[in-house]
């Protein structure tokens, strides 16, 4: 691997930051949505489910534009959030938002599958022992779905590390601010003779994600053993 330029290191650092935040922040939301979809019976469930899958269905560029329209400085949501000091537009937070949105369906699906696999009779048992539905979720369901949460998180992290289309469309490709690894790779691929540089970045990206993947597998195996599977 050739030595990376400072700009490339910036992209690496930013991608890590973006992916970690995208994963961590969307995780609780994903758990909630997965719970609603797995156990809820409410009007509009199909709609919610569709909405969650939207970023998967749409070409990433379209998702990026939608984010731009909604969360841009002048967008209906973006302008409101800007007043309380939250700015996504052309900011690393926007890259995290894009990555989070793109990864969201993957995360929700993994967690939802895990929730659906939990034996509802255990939750009933917790109920008879005095645990409210929320407490039951916290002390029975949640620990039992940790493998699924981990799977969802690692999928989301990997996806966030690779997300390009929506990110570059939403927050552009500003070095040090919104230039993630994939955007940097893209930029290198747009000009002649820079394939080598692109390849180094690909290697860094793969190394990071593989590391995370292996760590998550080891963790998952340990947890599975604890749960007694």
């Amino acid at each position, binding site marked *: 691997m050739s030595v990376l330029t400072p700009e490339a290191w910036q992209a690496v650092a930013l991608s890590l930051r973006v992916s970690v935040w995208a994963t961590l922040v969307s995780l609780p939301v994903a758990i909630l949505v997965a719970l609603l979809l797995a156990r809820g019976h409410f009007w509009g469930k199909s709609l919610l489910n569709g909405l969650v899958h939207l970023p998967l269905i749409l070409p990433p560029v379209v998702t990026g534009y939608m984010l731009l329209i909604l969360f841009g400085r002048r967008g209906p949501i973006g302008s409101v959030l800007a007043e309380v000091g939250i700015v996504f537009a052309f900011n690393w937070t926007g890259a995290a938002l894009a990555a989070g949105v793109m990864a969201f369906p993957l995360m929700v699906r993994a967690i939802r599958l895990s929730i659906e696999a939990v034996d509802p009779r255990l939750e009933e048992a917790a109920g008879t022992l005095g645990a409210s539905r929320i407490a039951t979720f916290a002390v029975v369901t949640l620990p039992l779905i940790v493998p699924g949460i981990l799977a969802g998180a690692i999928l989301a992290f990997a996806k966030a590390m690779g997300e390009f289309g929506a990110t570059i469309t939403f927050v552009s490709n500003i070095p040090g*601010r919104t*230039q993630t690894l994939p955007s940097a790779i893209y930029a*290198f691929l747009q000009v002649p003779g820079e394939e080598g540089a692109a390849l180094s970045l690909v290697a860094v990206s793969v190394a990071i994600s593989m590391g995370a993947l292996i760590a998550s597998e080891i963790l998952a195996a340990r947890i599975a053993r604890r749960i007694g599977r």
Partner: protein
Amino acid sequence: DEVVVFAAASLKNALEDVADAWHEETGGTATISFAGSSALARQIQAGAPADVFISANVGWMDTLEEDDLIIADTRRDVLANSIVLIAADPDAAPVTLEPGVDIAGLLDGGRLAMALVDAVPAGIYGKAALTSLGVWDDVAPQVAQADNVRAALALVARGEAPYGIVYATDAAAEPAVKVVATFPADTHPPIIYPAALTTGTDDPDAADFLDFMSSPAAAPLFERQGFKVIE
């Protein structure tokens, strides 16, 4: 303090050299966001913090000008490029691009790699050129459209497509392809990279960068990458 430049992705190497030179000379820093012209233009429409926009085609610059998003009197055409016909075979014979040229025959069942012919500038220029040569309808079914020029170039370089149409700048940098013809300038609209300050800019350095970019000092840096500098 930091000039934010939104520039078409194909300018990456040249513009980075220019930015370095500008920094040497003035101490100013330019941060350049490279992406597709359309994406950048839309971002400017959405209020992106860009000071300078350099587009790979005239259309998006026109759109921004209509929307009053660029300062019209700072708009200038900075660079020009040409499109060429390239072949995967290093021994391919040169082709004379005259009206009625049998490109379909040349392809011999293979594909002609281009950028998206209705969407991406290089593709639009190529389609115009083939149309004016009167062969577009013959060739059209054979065309494989990539989402950008570099991808079209890669298709030829990998030997997937025997021929392709790309910018001269891209062809020059790829040893695996052979330029077999250059499209005459009169077969397509001028291939021009316009640049301008955005109306949102409040950075006095931005104008300086724009001027430096179109100054003789920057010219060799662009030319090194194969661009023609418009005086």
